[in-house]
């Protein structure tokens, strides 16, 4: 109930920004009259905390859409519950195009672990705007300098010699590791997963000697790679990354066919009317094609990809199926 009544109010964040107007930081206008979409503020729900990659993507889209659609766009962080809270808030909102959100790859995972019933089918998908492959990184003081060496050591040494991290239990990079080990014929239980609150703490823990390797995306390890503390061994995508042209793909490194990608997709609750889609989808596409977005994504080292409503939905569907299989095989489902 609280979620439904939410988007009917003007978001408080905007009221705050309005107060900031007094000190000249922002200018906001409200136009309550009924007219063609959009005639009042739009809310973008980010299912993850302020400061993360998804938050940044949500905020830059909020900004670009605000300029394009000429209505205020508020970004609201609804984090917690491994993404369940925010994604639930998106799908339970009124499907009028005034509450949309950034759906992330976790949609294809959390219902398999039994945390929620919501799936990709509960969303109206507008566009996929980003994709990043998983990676494989070790500390620079690790004796293993290639994915092949690391794999051989995992196979050879006794169970639990190696510990890996990158995200929470059953999170995307945990799945990335499990899928990789399964594809190499290694029992997933051989490498215990050390849950972390995300990629940065996991990488820090690896540098501090707490874990042996981390499977998050190479973009997330950028500062530590440049600092010479972390060595990238492979990326788990289909091709090499522009940011790290010398780092092989997993297929090149060990011959594994396993790939894992995270994506960010702009979506709303199921049942958004066509006339709203006709306004929103082209606006998102224009924002995607803007220089600001490209500059931002290149700056962060995030991968750019655009998929329209249909293709983006199919990607969600496909990910959901393949992740379900791996999670069952790896014993990650409840």
């Amino acid at each position, binding site marked *: 109930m609280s979620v439904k009544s*939410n988007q009917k109010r003007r*978001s408080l964040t905007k009221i705050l920004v309005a107060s900031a107007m007094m*000190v000249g930081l922002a200018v906001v206008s409200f136009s309550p009259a009924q007219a063609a979409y959009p005639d009042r503020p739009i809310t973008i729900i980010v299912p993850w905390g302020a400061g993360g990659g998804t938050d940044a993507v949500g905020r830059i889209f909020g900004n670009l859409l605000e300029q394009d659609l000429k209505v205020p766009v508020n970004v609201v962080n609804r984090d917690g519950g491994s993404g*369940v809270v925010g994604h639930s808030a998106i799908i339970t909102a009124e499907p009028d195009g005034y509450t949309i959100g950034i759906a992330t790859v976790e949609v294809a995972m959390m219902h398999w672990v039994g945390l929620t019933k919501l799936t990709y089918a509960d969303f109206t998908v507008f566009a996929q705007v980003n994709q990043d492959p998983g990676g494989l990184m070790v500390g620079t003081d690790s004796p293993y300098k290639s994915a092949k060496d690391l794999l051989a050591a995992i196979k050879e040494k006794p169970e639990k010699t190696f510990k890996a991290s990158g995200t929470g239990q059953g999170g995307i990079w945990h799945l990335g590791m499990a899928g990789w080990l399964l594809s190499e014929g290694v029992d997933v239980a051989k490498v215990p997963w*050390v*849950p972390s609150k995300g990629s940065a703490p996991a*990488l820090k823990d690896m540098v501090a000697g707490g874990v042996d390797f981390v499977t998050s995306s190479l973009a997330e390890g950028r*500062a530590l790679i440049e*600092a010479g503390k972390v060595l990238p061994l492979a990326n788990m995508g289909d091709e090499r990354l522009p940011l790290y042209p010398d780092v092989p793909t997993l297929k090149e490194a060990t011959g594994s066919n396993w790939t894992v990608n995270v994506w960010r997709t702009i979506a709303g609750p199921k049942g958004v009317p066509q006339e709203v889609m006709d306004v929103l989808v082209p606006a998102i596409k224009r924002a995607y094609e803007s220089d600001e977005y490209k500059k931002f994504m290149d700056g962060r080292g995030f991968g750019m990809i655009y998929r329209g409503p249909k293709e983006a939905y199919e990607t969600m569907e496909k990910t959901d199926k393949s992740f379900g299989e791996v999670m069952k095989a790896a014993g990650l489902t409840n």
Partner: protein
Amino acid sequence: MDVFINAFGLIFDPYVLLVVILSGAFGLFMGAVPGLSATMATALLVPVTFFMEPVPALASIVTATAMAIFAGDLPGALLRIPGTPASAAYTNEAFAMTRKGQAELVLGTGLLSAVIGGLFGAVVLTFSAPVLAEFAIKFSSFEYFWLASLGLTCAAFVSSESAAKGLISLMIGLLIATVGIDGTTGFPRFTFGSVELLGGINFIPAMIGMFAMAEVFRSVTAIKPPPEVEQRTIGNIFAGLGKVLYRYKFNLLRGSTIGVLVGALPGAGSDIAAWIAYAVSKKFSKDPEKFGTGHVEGIVDAGSSNNAGLGGTWVPALVFGIPGDSITAIVIGVLYVKGMNPGPTVFLEHPELIYAVFVSFFLANILLLPLGLTAIKCAKQMLRVPREILMPVILMFCVVGTFAINNTVFGVGIMLVLGVISYFLEENGFPIAPAILGLVLGGLLEESFMTSMIKADGDLLAFFERPVSAVLGVITILIWLSPQLAKVWRKIRRATPLGGR
């Protein structure tokens, strides 16, 4: 040296100075309104900074956060509502001082210790960031476990009532911290099928409920109205301040040092720094019995530590791209967008930009003095408002503030429920501070323990295997045992002369 001159040139530019002053005012507003934190101020600044050059963009964040952390003291001291979590540690103390009619002293002390702490943090950040970052990054879950345990030990120092009641209160805080998805197994706990509870109990509504709501309840249920706040106006806030600060000059240094060190540890931040500084202050004070009754000493320590912590949190963020707290997590994103990719190379590639950021730390903290003074002058009007009008206004602020965090009524619900619980706790002599400390540290304690156990395959001795961890562990255990050890020591001393007879 040229780099410094260039950096000064970048900062002392009319446009940058204007941005700094405006974001300072913005930060003061955000910090002074309960529920709006320094983190939220930063998040709201981000879209604005997209259109700025790197230096004004970062200077605006530095200034807004420094102001917000101080401004959190204002509603804390005047209304017993901490404006930001970083003020929670000494809200009770500050409010007690206002009740004693020492509002000038507490606000003036808060302001000056914030300025001094902030400048100290800026010095450390400027001159030893790479070295300190090298040290901070070596901390693994084993060390964090001991740190969290040490932090919990503070509960014993921050509760002035009986130890048993303090312990119970701490346990309630820890229990509340377990609500939500269990980080280690991904299993939902105490959620009763509620999606909102999956996300856990957000700390800010909890804190507002436990301090401010409880105060509102107490005020409306009091049969005999409590003695009026004696102080109705604020005079010269600098009166007698020099003497206080001179007397506690050592506390300033200690609080600032604790602030920078705790801030530099990724994941700890200013909130925890203030708790630890306050507890340390009480532990080593000459008159610990005065703590909790409106004694200025702890405010000097904690007030300087949370502002010093801000500088500390930038250390791992700049050197390794690892956020020291939730504010620098956002800052790292801004750094990337501005092409100042964090890492040791940023000091070589863009030294003038980095030093401009450092200069902005100094500038922000110096600017805090006049702006903070103005804010105190505005805030003092609150003391003139009669209680019958003030209480409903506080209630409104509580509701608006807790709604603002996630734009959800659920936060308001949390605040109300915890307000009722803490009202009954306090009415029965249970201190509230330990429960809040439990809430702050519960997550870190559990997470660091569980991940350590996974890494060590369940071997408890692993907590003593790494050198830093071992030292921290021994210190913690000695502190825990110190009352018993002291008893034994006294017995031996008494026994020896007897044996000699």
